[in-house]
């Protein structure tokens, strides 16, 4: 523990700054807004953050690998529409969920195939997928909301366990699982090696083809989870669900210390990044700050946190 504190002080823990900033903002908001620390607000905050938080974790895999995934929002939309259409048509809930997961994971893998086999830069490949997947959503839903979901399904997002929304526990599960994958497994090691130097990784015998499929597949899978959670929360399948999420997810990862040049980033960092952005937005609303000003501050936060991170890296 002492060691940990020392490391913290020396700025060796990447997330150190973030934790401090987060604590400071929470204290400030608690002082200035009586509503901030109420159970209702916290629940609301957590519900919102959980969904984007799951997407951001998938994005973190992609960013560590040196890529980017712009298609997350659209794939989330696919999950929302497919799962709700299937449920409405009478398929059992869990089957509908599984089908949505499989489809979204496959869409992610297709991203991986385009990137690896097609040698298309990730930015372009996923930009294409972003556009096409949204098109698919609009096509199959006729651009209309899907209503009439089973009760049990819609209720899920409203349940609280130990006072916390169920969505939070899904996020937590995702956090724990991906934390273990990135820090304890061979896949995690290979992911960082690939992101740091793809050619050295290839010449070291890492199967970078399957790794690429896996990375984009994971991102697609996370979008499926997020899309299903969102559908449950809104009790409807929404064709525009997830629009703009790609930028929020990238922002969370980057604020959390992931570098777009690949090879660095952590799950915990991304979680903190997502929380920070959400808290600033939520707190700002409570304080009645002009939303445009909030938008400006989130923009500044993204840039500043990357600058701070560059400094830290240069000094170590």
């Amino acid at each position: 523990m002492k060691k940990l504190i020392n490391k913290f002080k020396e700025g060796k823990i990447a997330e150190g700054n973030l934790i401090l900033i987060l604590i400071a903002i929470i204290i400030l908001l608690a002082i200035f807004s009586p509503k901030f620390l109420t159970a209702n607000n916290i629940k609301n905050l957590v519900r919102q953050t959980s969904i984007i938080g799951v997407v951001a974790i998938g994005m973190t895999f992609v960013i560590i690998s040196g890529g980017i995934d712009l298609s997350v929002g659209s794939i989330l939309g696919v999950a929302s529409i497919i799962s709700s259409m299937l449920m409405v048509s009478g398929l059992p809930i869990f089957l509908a969920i599984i089908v949505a997961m499989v489809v979204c994971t496959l869409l992610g893998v297709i991203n991986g195939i385009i990137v690896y086999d097609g040698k298309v830069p990730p930015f372009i490949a996923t930009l294409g997928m972003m556009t096409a997947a949204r098109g698919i959503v609009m096509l199959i839903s006729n651009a209309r909301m899907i209503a009439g979901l089973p009760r049990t399904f819609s209720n899920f997002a409203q349940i609280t366990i130990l006072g916390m929304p169920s969505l939070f526990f899904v996020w937590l599960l995702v956090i724990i699982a991906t934390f273990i994958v990135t820090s304890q497994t061979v896949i995690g090691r290979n992911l960082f090696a690939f992101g740091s130097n793809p050619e050295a990784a290839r010449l070291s015998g890492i199967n970078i083809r399957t790794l690429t499929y896996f990375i984009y597949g994971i991102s697609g899978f996370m979008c499926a989870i997020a899309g299903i959670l969102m559908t449950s929360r809104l009790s409807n399948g929404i064709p525009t669900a997830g629009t703009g999420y790609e930028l929020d997810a990238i922002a969370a990862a980057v604020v959390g210390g992931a570098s777009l040049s690949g090879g660095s980033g952590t799950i915990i960092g991304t979680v903190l990044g997502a929380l920070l952005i959400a808290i600033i937005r939520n707190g700002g609303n409570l304080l009645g700050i002009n939303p445009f000003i909030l938008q400006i501050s989130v923009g500044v936060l993204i840039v500043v946190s990357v600058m701070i991170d560059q400094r830290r890296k240069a000094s170590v």
Partner: protein
Amino acid sequence: MGDTAFIELNQIVKDFPGVKALKGVDFSVYPGEVHGLIGENGAGKSTIIKIMMGVHQKNSGSIKINGDEVIIDNIIQAGRLGLAAVYQDLNLAMDLSIGENFFIGNLPKKKSGLVNWKYVYEETEKTLKDLKIVIDPRKKISELSPAMQEMVAIAKTVHLNSKLVIFDEPTALLTNEEVEILFDIIKTLKKRNVAIVYISHRLEEIFDICDRVTIFKDGEWVDTTDVEEIDEDQLINKMVGRNITEMYNIGHQSPGDDVIRVKNLTREGNFQNISFDVKAGEIFGFFGLVGSGRTEIMRAIFGADKLTSGSIELNGKPYKPKSPIDGIKKGIGFLPEDRKEQGLALALSVKHNINLSSYKDINRFSFVDKKQENSRADKYIDKMSIKTPSRRQTVGNLSGGNQQKVVIGKWLCNDSNIFIFDEPTVGIDVGAKREIYKLMEELAAAGKAVILISSYLPEVMGLSDRMAVIYEGNLTAVLDRKDFSEERILKHASGIK
């Protein structure tokens, strides 16, 4: 040599987290002098250069130029003071012409606002001629041989008003002839009364070109002396603290069965009709000029590049590699010549890099066995004497030579049985070189096949049991050890029949 030093560094201290890189060293260079700087990997040579060039800031100590104390904050300021450094990674834009590279970011304009190309090429040509380099400045960098690229980088760095020029291991990838060209440039500079710092791990070069030599060891100054007053053995002794004689003296095995048999290997544009075999317990040398296709042949065998035609047998069985995964599965370890681009994940730890190709063997249900991971890292840090504060250190922070040792450690760790070493001792100090040669001996004695590619003739001649010579993608000779002679090898390597 004048009376006052052009640059004088006193009691320079530089700490990095966990590393005392310089512990109060003195160093000075006079105008018109070629000053050699030598020391083991991690001794602090590059660090003191970077302090002079304003890349790093010293913790304490003083720098004087022409007797006046100066503070050097950044590279631009160093340039203004007349300091120039040629680093090993050349920093040229490959797709631009030589002239464009010279004026990059600073292209002269005509009144109309268009680039004044005539001026660009005339000036470039003049600068090149000044250093006795004859080449068309309109040529693209990528069309030049590596040696010529290096010359261009030197000419670009060295301005007419440069007063101190630093060469950090300039000859690492050059062959004898090319080294001669470089030495001519250095002599030209010397005549202009420029002060020169020359860092190299090839000690005979120090005797060829330097007037004085300074030795660092573990961040401390050991000695500065006239080159005439010291011999190679004494130099080595001061550098590594012990004597190393008979650098290339290793035991040779009686060869076993064929491990690799290669027939008519061709890769269009790179090499044609290459046939050879390597036996167990053999050290098989590959000599040829940089760019002659040696590396490409090995990459194809390893599975990194595709072949156009030809066949390979490993231990008598046909082998058709589709990717390095196949090569590694069959026990081939490949040490690439460009460690930064191909060998290392610079942003990751020493531990991670050493284990990079072994994680497939040290996991349970894909969970990394961390005990093994750590103990393997420690084992090879120790075996290769890698100088690092801990196994968690970022590889990018190690000195050049120590980075190279990490890559070798990776292939030892993976328990390969065919080792392809492409320029294994580039940038490695004498002590460590000797250790790598002993290691090759050890591998051969254990019945492994060792393929050694090197541009450094004494090394291939000294170590190999047999040697293949390559010229422009063709195998021009396979010689037995008893037939090795410099003249003969060079003839084959330059295509003279």
